[in-house]
């Protein structure tokens, strides 16, 4: 069946890890300086709110007619009020009322906001739209204006003010909830739950709310800071807390009357308001930032990067001589890559998703790169184009393009090279075009910048290039915006952009993955004819072995950040010697697969770049793995004829196999843990 090692890694007890992931995220926030400071401050404020009245209300209430309206002194740190009460203690004691009222107002805002924000989901389309429209109108009013309006409606006093601020804060919260909830409601898992017969209320409680909880809590925290300020404002205006109760706003108002005699009386409550407000705000912001940095809202999608300590093993190096077709690759290669690595900082030391990749591409040669997702294909391409962004670090023994050292040059000189001699085509050209500018102009810009053409010439060349990539009605099309192009047409325009200069190398990263078969065929044919016509070299990255096998001369097979085999494309089916290559080829269903047999699969899953095993990375999935494989990583060895392979048992055939090349794979769909 399957190798036991693969799934056991992820088969650990599930629940604790999930919970701890959430906790770890919040803890990580507390470890940042801003987060720690704000957290401490917030804790202090909350402690004061709880304990200050218990400890000091006596001192805050004691009349002392002997010392009325005094300034700061050793006895009274910030002086006294008109009844001789100690203002320092009054400010401390007022913490509870100020914070308490702010929290109450926030809760009202949150509750009303949640109800209004989720109503569209519960009520169905028509009534929901009405609610949303109402909320949108309310949001348009300034908050303070709303608060004043409600304060007048609910009447002067504490209750009125709480309601007023709560109501005033509700629309913003409703809108936030609505936006977040709508985002979740669109996801397939909600649709799936609906089909499974889950009712609306349960849908909301089980699926929507848990997935928007974190951002809501964060925003409520920030909102509490705002409510605190608003409350102080209302009390200060005399609309909020009434004597003999007092909060910071009230103290501020009292103090203001004597501001010229002793300003401390107004300053102290003012400082308290600002500090407490900041504490809420900063903490909320810090958490928001922390969460935003480490996770998508909704939590843990995709492969988790970086779990266990990374053992940066010294990957064996090799020379990147091309495996085949020495005639064509003769002379100086277009691209010469030696021992290329890309690493990112991880929580437990650097993670290296690309580990010592070496290869060369000769003039006019088409080289394919295949491998499962996460094997480092795209990162290799980005590193060659110097497009790896910080904090990623690119390292290489040699990285030469047309004899120029790409690693050494300045960004500017490199960009020039990119603009003229090097073209890059991505999977989704929509992200590579500026949506607000016409296609023709975007192409022309390349020629203006790098070839010194004037506007007219450049535009002329753009149209010519669009024509050369068979964009129909190129003249008219050049005046259109990217969104007016279909996917296949955009991909052609992207290739046309690469052809604005005179490229010697086109790097295409999954250029046809998003396209339909018929369109894919056209784009591949186009790449092929460009290559043939101008002797342009091509590095074609794809997860689809069939596509690569069709277009390329030579294929690099990548696994876990390394090239594990380098062989002529024509030999993919019959001459592959690495067990991974064979398995990969065997899993592609074509129009001739035997319908009576189960499809072959590769059991287990690719290794996590953060926990590379010391030996061969493929060992846990490999039917030929031996003790040596687990201990020692095989080097990419040249067989003399130009083919390269990294495997201790290259070319050997498993015992339970009968079809060479296609056999060493699990023939059941079992992937049991």
């Amino acid at each position, binding site marked *: 069946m399957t190798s036991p090692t693969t799934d056991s890694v*992820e*088969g650990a*007890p*599930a*629940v604790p890890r*999930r919970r701890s992931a959430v906790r770890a995220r919040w803890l990580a926030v507390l470890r940042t300086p801003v987060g720690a400071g704000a957290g401490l401050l917030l804790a202090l404020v909350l402690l004061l709110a709880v304990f200050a009245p218990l400890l000091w209300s006596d001192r805050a209430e004691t009349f002392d007619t002997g010392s009325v309206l005094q300034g700061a002194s050793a006895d009274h740190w910030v002086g006294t009020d008109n009844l001789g009460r100690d203002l320092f203690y009054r400010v401390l004691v007022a913490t509870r009322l100020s914070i308490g009222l702010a929290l109450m107002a926030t809760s009202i805002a949150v509750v009303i906001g949640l109800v209004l924000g989720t109503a569209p989901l519960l009520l169905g389309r028509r009534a929901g739209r009405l609610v949303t429209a109402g909320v949108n109108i309310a949001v348009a009013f300034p908050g303070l204006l709303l608060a004043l309006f409600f304060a007048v409606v609910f009447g002067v006093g504490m209750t009125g003010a709480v309601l007023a601020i709560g109501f005033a804060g509700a629309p913003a919260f409703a809108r936030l909830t609505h936006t977040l909830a709508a985002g979740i409601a669109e996801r*397939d*898992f909600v*649709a*799936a*739950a609906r*089909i*499974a*017969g889950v009712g609306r209320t349960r849908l909301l409680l*089980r*699926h929507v709310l*848990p*997935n928007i909880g974190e951002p809501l809590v964060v925003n409520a925290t920030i909102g509490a800071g705002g409510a605190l300020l608003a409350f102080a404002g209302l009390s200060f205006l005399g609309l909020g807390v009434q004597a003999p109760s007092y909060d910071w706003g009230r103290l501020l108002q009292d103090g203001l009357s004597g501001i010229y005699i002793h300003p401390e009386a107004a300053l102290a409550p003012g400082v308290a308001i600002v500090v407490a407000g900041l504490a809420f705000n900063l903490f909320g912001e810090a958490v928001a930032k922390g969460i935003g940095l480490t996770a998508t809202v*909704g*939590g*843990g*999608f995709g492969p*988790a990067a970086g779990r266990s300590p990374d053992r940066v093993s010294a990957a064996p190096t090799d020379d990147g001589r091309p495996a085949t077709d020495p005639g064509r690759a003769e002379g100086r290669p277009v691209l010469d890559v030696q021992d290329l690595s890309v690493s990112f900082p991880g929580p437990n030391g650097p993670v290296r998703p690309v580990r010592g990749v070496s290869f060369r591409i000769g003039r006019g040669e088409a080289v394919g790169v295949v491998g*499962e*997702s996460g094997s480092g294909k795209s990162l290799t391409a980005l590193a060659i184009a110097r497009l790896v962004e910080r904090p990623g670090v690119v390292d290489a023994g040699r990285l030469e393009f047309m004899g120029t050292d790409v690693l050494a040059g300045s960004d500017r000189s490199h960009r020039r090279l990119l603009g003229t001699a090097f073209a890059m085509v991505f999977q989704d050209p929509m992200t590579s075009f500026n949506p607000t500018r016409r296609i023709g102009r975007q192409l022309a810009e390349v020629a203006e910048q790098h070839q010194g053409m004037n506007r007219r010439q450049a535009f002329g060349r753009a149209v010519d290039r669009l024509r050369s990539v*068979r*964009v*129909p009605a190129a003249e008219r099309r050049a005046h259109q915006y990217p969104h007016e192009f279909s996917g296949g047409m955009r991909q052609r325009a992207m290739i046309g952009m690469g052809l604005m200069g005179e490229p010697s190398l086109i790097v295409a990263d999954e250029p046809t993955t998003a396209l*339909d078969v*018929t*369109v894919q*065929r*056209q784009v*591949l044919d*186009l790449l*092929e004819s460009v290559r043939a016509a101008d002797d342009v070299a091509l590095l074609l990255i794809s*997860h689809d*072995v*069939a596509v690569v096998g*069709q277009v390329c001369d030579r294929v690099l097979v990548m696994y876990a950040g390394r090239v594990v085999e380098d062989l002529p*494309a*024509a030999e*993919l089916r019959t001459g592959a010697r690495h067990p991974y290559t064979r*398995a990969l080829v065997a*899993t*592609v*269903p*074509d*129009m001739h*697969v035997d*319908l009576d047999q*189960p*499809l072959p*699969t590769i059991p287990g*899953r690719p290794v996590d770049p953060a926990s590379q095993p010391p030996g061969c990375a493929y060992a846990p999935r490999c039917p030929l793995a031996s003790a040596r494989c687990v201990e020692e990583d095989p080097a990419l060895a040249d067989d003399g004829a130009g083919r390269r392979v990294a495997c201790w048992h290259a070319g050997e055939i498993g015992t339970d196999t009968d079809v060479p090349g296609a056999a060493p794979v699990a023939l*059941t*769909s*079992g*992937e049991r*843990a």
Partner: protein
Amino acid sequence: MSELRFDGVTIRYGNRRRGTTAVDGVDLTVPDGAVVGLVGESGSGKSTLARAAVGLLPLTGGQILLDGQPLRHGSGPRPVQMVFQDPYSSLDPRMTIGDSIGEAVPRGTRSADRRQEVARLLELVELDPARAGAYPAQLSGGQRQRVAVARALAARPQVIVADEITSALDVSIQGTVLNLVRRLQRELGTSMLFISHNLAVVRYVASEIAVMYLGRIVEHGPTAEVLADPQHPYTRDLLAAVPESTRARSAPVTADPAPAAIAAAEPADPHAPPPGCRYHPRCPVGPLVHGDREICRTTEPTAEHRHAAACHFAPAGRPLLRVAD
């Protein structure tokens, strides 16, 4: 399981004046216990049809019948269940996979029974029942997709709609899901509408193939027959475009003079489908190539040809009618 029939189904997005008819008068039957593969380029309306079948979209016209009865979506699990394309977004990241599956088990089941049922289903899709407490983030894409299949089965559906369920997966594991689909069909007799743009995949799992173009079914017949002897030019184009890893490197099509205009033709715009035969601006045997085929521009072809091919020049044949009708 049961038979699912689309009867003149039309689905529009948007309002009457500005809108798109994504599905236009589709007749299609998924026979009891059969897997019907639906192929066609993106935007042709495959997913729209799928979502309508499970009641996520309202019909503009026509009806969907389950064993001859109009489909109703009351409370409780729906009789037609769906497996979605992207297993990363079709499972709630905050719910254990056991809970996700258990949610679809019909209500009124005692919780011990429910747990047992979840374990049985996990076993059925070849996952360890002990992992019911795992969260989706801890599973690989292929494992998630099998959880999604288990959830669909939990609702005791009469038909399952699978919309591109392997296209978000690496080829290396897509086989596990396809093998599962085949096994379910064989062991449980699951009726299934299996949507994919990959002909090799459809060939492997489906007993019949329906080809969709711009909101219409343009050809429909037994898989082996349609693939061996495609009647509609669009089906032929699809087949010709399938990359073959065994095939030697092909010469670029520039050598081929006639269909240059056609090779460069844009995929048609569903907002404004062409008159007559919808495929005529791209058809290599249509009016662009044969001057005497003006009928293609003006008259919509009927399906009264072999494999119900909607092409004026396909050989005549029995329309694909079923005895059950």
